[in-house]
């Protein structure tokens, strides 16, 4: 094989250190050839504090011990996301990590539920979901045993301090030979004939040369955009939110094993409970609200005392026209930005890394690798975009300019057809490649009051009483399993994952 390419990662936030850790683990013989440049003068955005269950596979592939990781990053477990005020004001539902109930023979559970619901014989669908009920009672356990049994058919993710995660992965990566260089890039040298990035010059006069650059420099896209001028596909038409303000606060009460996203008049607010504090933010569209109002709205809705000054972020939703251009691969915010409504920021980083590893250049940069990388990541971004858009258009709200904007929006055909299939018969077209599978679509559509007018006619082969009995068994077993589950705080302590630091307090 030809010599292993020299890799330079620019930027040391979650994207940078996740990339470094994964490459150093997957290519252990390349130690010393991976350099990460970061500057302590440049802050990291750290938007993605909440994750999706796939992060566990990422950590497992790195051989990371879960309790240690959780203790270090002050992480909590996450069973889903609670959405408040989305369908209409006063609504709340949880999008859980896992299926509702169990199939009735070969038929989807939700179809049986729809039939019973139409006959007025079903409980709310949440009552057939272990992760929802457990989340509502702040309980948690790790799913073990047969996935076909109640109490085991769910997944989980984490809510963590992403700057601590980056720090954790930094030690991990450096122990595996990744070289960290402190400094700001002041000049970028391009190859005269290839147009490839060849050298990054730092303030202190030192230079880093590499064959492959991973741009993890955040929104600025120092290499992919400022240098290579790759271009950006603007998705503001679909997802117009363009600003966010983040403020941590003291946490109150039990540790919730779920993230909360509350719809506001010009955007939405996140709440991410960590072990020592609660992360909060307001994502909004500047066309519909001023920055000051947005901050005021957020401050009015904090559960505890403010722990830091507001951190203001500016962005444009969309994606880089090419995620991989010449010898630069953009991962993280430099690749594109989709608001973190479904905790996809870190997931898209992970997808970028996994895809890069699968298409890792063996003999120089080859067009076929670049092309396939861009195809795969494009599909990932697009499918996440459509799922995010669903939250805004599956609504009865029209109480502000933003909600009226969405009411008037012409949907992409693929999403429109999806909605019609759901509304007429509870059908959810399946795809294989994409992070959100049918149970996620189901959770949001039902949660936001899109009730199908009919159900799969195959359910009519069952007597109503038989179906009722089957679902009742699932419901009572689910409730029993939840009762036997410890609270998250108890579980963290017994699992050895509880942080030793006390909960943060605001300066008095």
């Amino acid at each position, binding site marked *: *094989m030809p010599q*292993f390419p020299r890799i330079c990662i620019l930027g040391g936030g979650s994207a940078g250190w996740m990339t470094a850790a994964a490459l150093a683990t*997957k*290519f*252990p*013989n390349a130690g010393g050839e991976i350099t990460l440049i970061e500057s302590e003068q440049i802050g990291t955005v750290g938007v993605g504090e909440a994750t999706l269950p796939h992060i566990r596979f990422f950590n497992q*592939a790195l051989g990371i011990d879960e309790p240690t990781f959780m203790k270090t990053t002050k992480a909590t477990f996450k069973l889903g996301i609670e959405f408040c005020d989305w369908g209409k004001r006063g609504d709340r539902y949880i999008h859980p990590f896992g299926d509702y109930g169990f199939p009735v023979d*070969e038929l989807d559970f939700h179809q049986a539920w729809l039939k019973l619901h139409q006959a007025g014989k079903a409980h709310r669908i949440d009552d057939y979901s272990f992760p929802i009920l457990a989340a509502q009672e702040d309980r948690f356990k790790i799913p073990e045993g047969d996935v076909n049994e109640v109490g085991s058919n769910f997944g989980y993710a984490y809510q963590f301090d992403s700057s601590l995660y980056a720090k954790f992965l930094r030690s991990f990566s450096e122990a595996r030979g990744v070289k960290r260089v402190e400094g700001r890039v002041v000049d970028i040298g391009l190859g005269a004939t290839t147009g490839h990035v060849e050298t990054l010059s730092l303030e202190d006069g030192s230079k880093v040369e590499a064959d492959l650059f991973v741009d993890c420099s955040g929104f600025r896209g120092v290499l992919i955009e400022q240098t290579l001028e790759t271009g950006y596909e603007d998705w503001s038409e679909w997802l117009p939110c363009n600003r966010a303000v983040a403020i941590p606060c003291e946490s109150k009460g039990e540790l919730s094993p779920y993230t909360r996203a509350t719809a506001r008049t010009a955007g939405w607010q996140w709440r991410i409970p960590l072990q020592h504090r609660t992360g909060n933010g307001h994502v909004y569209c500047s066309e519909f609200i001023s920055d000051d109002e947005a901050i005021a709205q957020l401050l009015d809705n904090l559960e505890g005392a403010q722990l830091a000054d507001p951190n203001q972020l500016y962005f444009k939703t969309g994606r880089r026209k090419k995620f991989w251009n010449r010898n630069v691969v953009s991962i993280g915010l430099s690749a594109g930005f989709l608001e973190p409504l479904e905790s996809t920021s870190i997931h898209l980083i992970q997808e970028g890394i996994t895809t890069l*590893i*699968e*298409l*890792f250049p*063996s*003999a120089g940069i*080859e067009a*076929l*690798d670049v092309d*396939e990388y861009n*195809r795969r990541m494009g599909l990932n971004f697009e499918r996440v975009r459509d799922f995010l858009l669903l939250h805004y258009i599956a609504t009865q709200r029209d109480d502000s300019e933003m909600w009226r904007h969405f009411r008037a929006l012409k949907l992409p055909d693929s999403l429109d*057809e999806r909605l*019609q*299939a759901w509304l*007429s*018969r509870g*059908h959810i*077209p*399946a*795809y*294989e*490649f994409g992070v959100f599978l049918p149970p996620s679509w189901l959770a949001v559509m039902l949660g936001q009051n899109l009730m199908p*007018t*009919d*159900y*799969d*006619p*195959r*359910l*009519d*082969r*069952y007597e109503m009483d038989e179906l009722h009995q089957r679902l009742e068994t699932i419901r009572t077993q689910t409730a029993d399993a939840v009762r036997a589950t410890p609270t998250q705080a108890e579980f963290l302590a017994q699992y050895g994952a509880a942080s030793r630091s006390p909960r943060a307090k605001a300066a008095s």
Partner: protein
Amino acid sequence: MVASQKTLVVIGRGLAGNLAALALSNSLGPSWRIVQVGQPSTPPEDSFYGNVTAPTAYNFLRSVGLDEPRLLRRSSTAFSLGTHFKNWLGGASWMQCHHSPFATPAGAPLHHQLTRLGLDLEPLLVSAQVALAGRFAHPPSDPGSVLSRAEYGYQFDPMEWACLLDQSLQSSPVEIVECGVSEVETQAGNITALTLENGDTLTATLVIDANGPSRRESLCSGGAFTTKRTVHAQANQTSTPQTGPACQSVEASAQGWVSTAFLQDRALGLNVSAVRGNNAEQQGFNIALGQLDAAWNGNCVAIGHAAAVVEPLTPAPMMLLQRDIERLLGLIPTGVNMEVERREYNRQYRDDIAHISLFLTTLVKSDDVPDSVYWRDAQPTEPDEKLQRKLAQFEHRGLLVSYDLEPFNDEDWTILHWGKGLRPRQYDRTADAMSQVDATQTLASIRQSIEQITPRIPPHGLYVAKLKDYLERQAHG
């Protein structure tokens, strides 16, 4: 009669019609009346469904009462570990076997280690080796046994299965009318009434055209069949004193190809060639390869050969037929307006056809084909972006490009590429995580396990005979 009962009419009593009628009858409740019309004879074109199924057929067949004990006891069905391509284009021979996901030594896909070490794939495939040795046993559930990696389908006779299904239909709620359709009345793209040859008239909510390649009902409601060529097929059978191997064989000939499937007591042959001058003098039938642009038009759904005809070089025709029926079951209309169901059905149908075509095109695509009408016409004429990507990426670096919900899986594709002689120019660097010595040893140990277990597995015929004995004893208490 149930109040507001809807009527579903299945036209055709061959394999497709019988599978569909029974599957519908088992799936739907009393609010649907199911009527099946047609002469009780299996059309000769049913032999173009081929003689093999893929492992994915197992649960589907069970759901229509074709469970394994019944198939073995009541028909000459035998097991299939895949298809043995012999003397294929450019002289390639390989076993296109059914296999569970390949081992991934040190996290890298198996074929990257093979590329790295310059080794062959087939000696590491237990289903290939067992089939080639003429042996068979059920894969055990114990993952410690190398045989657990094998998967299997069946070798079967479509006519026989149609008869078995017909027996089940006789005792099912399906109303069978033993005559064909003489007239079809349509209005605004929907079939409003079917006049039968016996003079009766049926009004139908939904019509299933399972009447083979004549496609009358679907055409009348607007479907267009796209075909690029017509081939001639001739089926034959010979009795065999002993059951042959647990794999079908397919061999290229100068004028086309010949397949032989080995059932319990006979061998079924299919000879496919270009259409020749005087058809009247030839045995067999001509059949147009191609597909309806949309299989669901108005209130009529074409399934099986009525929708699409692909060459039975692989289990593809049975895969498509199964998917047609499963797609239909999942989208039985809830009301008179079927727009949502029709659109979703046709979307899935087009994807399935396109993905099946990728596999079949790869199989017949070659620069080294016999100089004959059949083989010249079999070559793709237009570039297909999805196919080019699959071939280019595998050749470039052994990357398996997949699209949503393809019928053929990664293992099928890897075996096909390897069998046709396509080798990656480079392997994935993740394979280097294991030293060359360790990788060599790991693969050698898989090969040795297969070599050790294969002679201990009984011959296919003996296994079937003993299993049948056991099943008979069980059946008689």
